[in-house]
Each structure stands twice: as structure tokens, then as C-alpha cells.
């Protein structure tokens, strides 16, 4: 994100209400700034845009296809509809698909009660999953002394991949295989604990939206993530706060 002009100037209508957006601002940024809720999962302020979860799709006037709000920049006189019955149904189905894909057993998850997937299910009235569960045979990587990776709970949002690459500069994480075989791996698919590039910074754990990455020793419901640390870091970096140009936020 580059520095913004002082004043928003682009007229954009969201759900019938007119707002002024900054040039280059995304629909999602604007919606958040003016208090309109658009659900997201892979998006995280400060990280690069991925556009993988597709939960933030919105209708833009004149386009035959839905657009991801996280990746779509505003243009003048844009008319955005963030929530129709159809869009909500799409979102609900995507959330259900994510549940069906993994082994998400909320009842004893370290992050139950603090899980973005669980919240999204509630938000979209998911009271059961219409699709067969996959019951994949995933593996847990407990080789790291401090952290734990439970792939059963991973939604492949790649927040960990991006934060490790873009903030820590270590690029420990990436995705191996493709399609439904995709999974998060450390290094070139080595046990996390054996990764020499991992700096133990823990940012991946902080940004994980589910219980996939956690601090060791946490019991059911005890793992509370802190993804906002990244927007703090990103803002500090952008504003040059560490080189004393501005006051600490």
C-alpha cells in the first residue's frame, strides 16, 4: 500500500450509500473504513492480496461477474452491492466447502471460540454442512520446539506463507502439491523443526485464522491469534515509525 493522498475524492456507492474513496483504494478497504462488513478469510491488512478464499466477492454494477472486494480497486461512480441473497448463499457454500474439505472438529480445537472459520460459519447461518466430508488423512507437524502445525485445521489461506515471506523474509512456508492435495509445507517439505530458515518469530502463528498453527501447550480454546500485529507492523513500516520520523502509534 502506498501513501495516500490527503483526501478521498472518488465517489463510490456501497449498498446504496455514497462514499468518497481514496484513489487506488480497494472496495474492501473503503467498506471497512466506512463500516460496511464484507467477510474475508485469506485477506489480512498489511499482507499482499491473495484472492483465494473468494468470500469477499461483491457485485459491481455493470459487471456480469462477481468481483473480489480485496483485490478490486475503486473507480469513479462505482456501484457496489456487498450482500444479496445470492452472494450470501455463495459465501455460505464456500464456508461449507472449507468445513467439508478439512477435519475441522471445533469441539476440541485449540482455537475454538477464536477461529475466523468458525465465526464465518456462524455469520452465514451454517447449521450443518450440505456436502460430504472428505475426512482427509492429514499430518500434524509437531517437530518445532515452540509451535505446532495441524493440517487438519488448515484452510490454505496462505497468510503464513505470505507473512513469512513478506515480513520475516524467511519464506519458510509454501504450498506443496496442487488442487485438493495442496498442503502447507516448511522448506522443501521438511519437518518444521528442521528448517534452518525459520527464525522462530511466530508471526505465522499469530496470523493463522484457524487452529492450524498454534503455540505448543495450548489446550482447547486457549489459542488466541493476533493477526492485527501485522497491520501494526505494516503501518509502522509504511510511516517510517522505526526511524523516528513519526510518533509511535
Amino acid at each position: 500500500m502506498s501513501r495516500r493522498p490527503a483526501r478521498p475524492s472518488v465517489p463510490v456507492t456501497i449498498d446504496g450509500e455514497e462514499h468518497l474513496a481514496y484513489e487506488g483504494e480497494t472496495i474492501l478497504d473503503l467498506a471497512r473504513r466506512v463500516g460496511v462488513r464484507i467477510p474475508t478469510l485469506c485477506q489480512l491488512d498489511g499482507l499482499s492480496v491473495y484472492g483465494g478464499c473468494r468470500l469477499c466477492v461483491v457485485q459491481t454494477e455493470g459487471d456480469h461477474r462477481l468481483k473480489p472486494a480485496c483485490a478490486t480497486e475503486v473507480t469513479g461512480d462505482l456501484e457496489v452491492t456487498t450482500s444479496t441473497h445470492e452472494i450470501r448463499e455463495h459465501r455460505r457454500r464456500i464456508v461449507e466447502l472449507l468445513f467439508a474439505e478439512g477435519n475441522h472438529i471445533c469441539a476440541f480445537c485449540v482455537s475454538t471460540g477464536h477461529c475466523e472459520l468458525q465465526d464465518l460459519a456462524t455469520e452465514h447461518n451454517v447449521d450443518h454442512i450440505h456436502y460430504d466430508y472428505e475426512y482427509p488423512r492429514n499430518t500434524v507437524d509437531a517437530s518445532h520446539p515452540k509451535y505446532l502445525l495441524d493440517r487438519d485445521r488448515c484452510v490454505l489461506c496462505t497468510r503464513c506463507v505470505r507473512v513469512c515471506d513478506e515480513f520475516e523474509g524467511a519464506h519458510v512456508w509454501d504450498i506443496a502439491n496442487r488442487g485438493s492435495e495442496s498442503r502447507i509445507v516448511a522448506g522443501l517439505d521438511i519437518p518444521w523443526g528442521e528448517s534452518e530458515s525459520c527464525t522462530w518469530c511466530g508471526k505465522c502463528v499469530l496470523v493463522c485464522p484457524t487452529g492450524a498453527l498454534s503455540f505448543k501447550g495450548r489446550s482447547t480454546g486457549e489459542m488466541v491469534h493476533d493477526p492485527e500485529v501485522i497491520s501494526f507492523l505494516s503501518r509502522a513500516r509504511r510511516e517510517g515509525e522505526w526511524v523516528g520520523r513519526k510518533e509511535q502509534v
Partner: protein
Amino acid sequence: MSTPNGNGNGQPRKLRFATAWLGGCSGCHMSFLDLDELLFDLAEHVDVVFGPLTDVKVFPPDVDITLVEGAVTNEDNVEIARAVRANTRVVVSFGDCAVTGNVTSLRNAMGDPDPMVRRVYVDHPDINGAMPTEIVPALLPQAEPLHELIPVDVYLPGCPPSGERIRNALFRLVESLEAGEGIPDMDWRTPDDLRFG
């Protein structure tokens, strides 16, 4: 199917209420008991005609509401679930095991359940280890949510659903059936009423 239209002497007859316990830990039933004094209120509206809380052996006909706890994990569960569906107006998938498979379905990712049964019944016992051939119902290849086997009318997630959550759903349901309105719209549910886990 029965109707709630009374017993012929002007008094509306009570709803016939059942619970069933499939592959679950009975925690949902415990949570049901957490209705505490509200159980008396409920009893004014319903007769409990089947479930672990009664001593009835065969699922009765003309039941209005059945709460089904647990995933479908063995042949016995299949039989009960089918009996429930055949004799119940409103089947409630009761708790996360029935709704999602939950803990009961953890075995699914491990594939064939036979080695697990062997581990428990053959390898582990101190004496007379053997594969069970009777009484213990055979496991299905996978534990499945209830709606995989029978059509379900209302979903009540939670592990277990809290007493309050049960109260909110159940009394709404009772009210609606008594008023002859059928299955109520469940869109009113707040995060407190819906969350998995």
C-alpha cells in the same frame, strides 16, 4: 404421521417427545438435563415417549419431536435412526456429533475401522480377547452425520449445545407445533444459538 389436534375432549393433546442416542458421549443429553427447572415447563407441553431417560425398548409411532444425539457410526445407529425418521414429524439433529460427525468421526480419516476394533477387543483386554460377533453392533466403514442417512428437519449444533441453546430452539419448536404451524423458520438464531463446538 400424527397431528397436534387434540384428544377429542377439547383439550389439546400433549406433543409426543423422544430423544435418541446414537454415536455420541451422551453429553448432549446431559446438557438437555441442564434445562433444570425448565424441564417442568417442558413437561407441561410434551410427553417423553422414548429415549435413554425412559425404559421403552421400541421406538413408538406418532412422535412429534425427536432429538437425535450422536453420529451414525454402527448398524444399531442406522436401525434407530430409520425408526426415528419413520415415526417422527420433526427430527432434530442434536449436537455436533449428529450435525457434523464431530469427535465420533475422528476415526474416519484412519480408514478401515477393523484394526481399531481389534486393538480394543483383541489386543488390549487382559483376558479372553476376541473380535465381537454379537451384541456389539458392527461399525460402519465411516461415522457420518445424521443427515447423511435420513432427512433432518432442524439442526442444533454445539458440543454440547448449551441448556440455553436447547431451550431457545426447543421451546420455539414446541410453540410452533402446538400452534399447528409446522417447522419454524430458524433464521432468528444468534451466534449463541449456532456456533459449532
